[in-house]
C-alpha cells in the first residue's frame, strides 16, 4: 500500500511538473512525464494488479489535466503499463540503449493510438507528415528521458520497501549454478 501511494503521488507530481515544463519546452520538446512514470512502474513493479490500478489512475489524471477525451489516456496508460510489464520479463532492457529504444517505440505507438482513437470521436483530424515527424521527435525525447525516470521510480520502490526489481529478470536453472 505504501508503494502504491508513493508511486501515485510521484506520478501526480510528475504530471504537475510537466504542465510547468511545457511552458518552457513547447511540444514536442517537453517529455511526457506522466507516460514515462507509467512505463517505469511497468518496468519496476512486480505486482500486476496494483500496477494496473496505478496506470488507470494516472491516465485518468492526464485526462483531467489535458484537453484529451475523457478515458482515452486512461485506456492507453493501462495498455502501455501492460506492454512495459511484459516487456520487462521477456526482453533484455537492462542496457540503457535498449531501454531507450523500447520506450521511444512505445511512445511513438502511443501517439499514433491517440490519433487513431481521437479520429473516431472528433471529425476532421488530419494525419500530416509534420505531425508524424513531431510524434517521432517526441518519442525520442521520451526515450532520452526514460533512464532518469526509471532510476527515480526504482529508488521510490526500494524506499517504500518493495524492492523486487532484481527478481524480474528471467531466472534460468542451470546444473552449473554454484551452491
Amino acid at each position, binding site marked *: 500500500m505504501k508503494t502504491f501511494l508513493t508511486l501515485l503521488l510521484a506520478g*501526480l507530481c510528475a*504530471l*504537475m*511538473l*510537466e*504542465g*510547468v515544463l*511545457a*511552458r*518552457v519546452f*513547447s*511540444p*514536442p520538446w*517537453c517529455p*511526457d*512525464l*506522466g507516460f514515462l512514470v507509467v512505463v517505469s512502474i511497468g518496468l519496476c513493479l512486480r505486482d*500486476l*494488479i496494483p500496477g*494496473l*490500478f496505478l496506470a*488507470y489512475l494516472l*491516465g*485518468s*489524471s*492526464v*485526462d*483531467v*489535466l*489535458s*484537453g*484529451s*477525451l*475523457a*478515458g*482515452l*489516456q*486512461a*485506456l492507453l496508460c*493501462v495498455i502501455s503499463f*501492460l506492454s512495459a510489464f511484459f516487456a520487462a520479463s521477456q526482453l533484455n532492457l537492462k542496457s540503457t540503449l535498449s531501454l531507450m529504444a523500447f520506450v521511444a517505440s512505445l511512445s511513438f505507438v502511443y*501517439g499514433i493510438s*491517440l*490519433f487513431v*482513437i*481521437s479520429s473516431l*470521436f*472528433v471529425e*476532421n*483530424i*488530419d494525419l*500530416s507528415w*509534420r*505531425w508524424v515527424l*513531431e510524434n517521432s521527435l*517526441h518519442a525520442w525525447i521520451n526515450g532520452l528521458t526514460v533512464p532518469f525516470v526509471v532510476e527515480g521510480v526504482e529508488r521510490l520502490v526500494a524506499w517504500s520497501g518493495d524492492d523486487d526489481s532484481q527478481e524480474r529478470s528471467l531466472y534460468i536453472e542451470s546444473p552449473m549454478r554454484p551452491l
Partner: protein
Amino acid sequence: MFGFLKRMSAPIVLGALILAALSSLVGGRSARDGENLPWIQGLLLDVTVPFQKALAVPGDLIAGAWDSYIDLVDLGSENSRLQAELTDLEQVNLHLREALVSSGHLDRIVEMRDKFEVPMLPAAVAGLDVSPFFRSILIDRGSQHGVRAGHPVINHEGVVGVVSRTSSHAAKVLLIFDRQSAADAVIQRSRTRGTVRGRGTSQPNFEYEARRGDVEVGDVVLTSGLGGVYPKGLKLGEVTEVADLGGSLMQSASVSPAVEFGRLEQVFVILRRGTGMELLYETGEFVDPGPSPRQGAEAGAGQPGEAGS
C-alpha cells in the same frame, strides 16, 4: 472456485479497467457531462493549479529579469519611435471623433456600448496541457468565480480559446489550434466567410468555399460571431499561406494566431456564452435565444479593441 477467481483476478481487473475507460470515452461525449468535473477530478484540478503556479515562480522570475534587461537595451530609440506614433495616432483619433460627432453617431455608440457591456474576468495561466497531442491550458478561475464551460477566453491580442471544463477554483481552456477546436470566421478585407479549424500544430487552417473566396497572404482573420461560440470581431490571426488545392470546392489557408501562445500568462474570460454554447450546455430543452443580453453581447463586442480591453 476461490482458486479460479484468484487465478483470474488480473484479467478481471484488466477487463474492468478497460471497460471503465471505454465507458468514460463514450459517455463523456455528452455536453451535459462536460459542464463541470466530478468532485474528485475537480479536486485534482484545484490542487494542480496552485501547485503549478508555485512551481512556475522561479522560472517566471528568471524570464522576467531577462526580458527586463533585453527591454532596457533599446529603450531610448523605442521610446522616441512610440512617442512619434502616439502623436500620429492622437491626430487620427481627433479626426475620427470629429467625424463621428458631426454625423451624430457618437452618442448612439456610447449608448450601445453601455447597454451591451460584456463582463470579463481576468485569469492567470497556471500550466499547459500535459499531453503533447492536445492543446489546452489551465487557468486559476473556476465555477466559484462565475466561469462556466463554453465561455470564450481572449487576451489583448485576440482569441485564446473556449472553457471546456471547470472545477470550483480552476478551469481548462481548449486553445483555438487544438484539433477539437473550430471557429466561424471572416476575412476582414474581403468578408470571405469560413472556418478556422485547429490542426494540433501552431498554425490552424482557415477553410473557405473556393468559388466565393478571396483570401491573400497577410489578410486579417476575425471571428464572425455566427458560430455561436465567440463574439463577433475578435482577432483570430493573419493568413500566412494560401494552399492551392486545384479544383477542390473547399480551399484552405494557414493562419498565424494573433495570440502568442508561448508567452501566454494573463487571459480574460468573457462571462457570457454564445448562443450555440448556451444551447449545448442548457438542460437539453430548446432555448429560444430571443432578445436576451446574449444577443447584445454578440452585437456589442463587435469592436475587437473593446472586447479585449
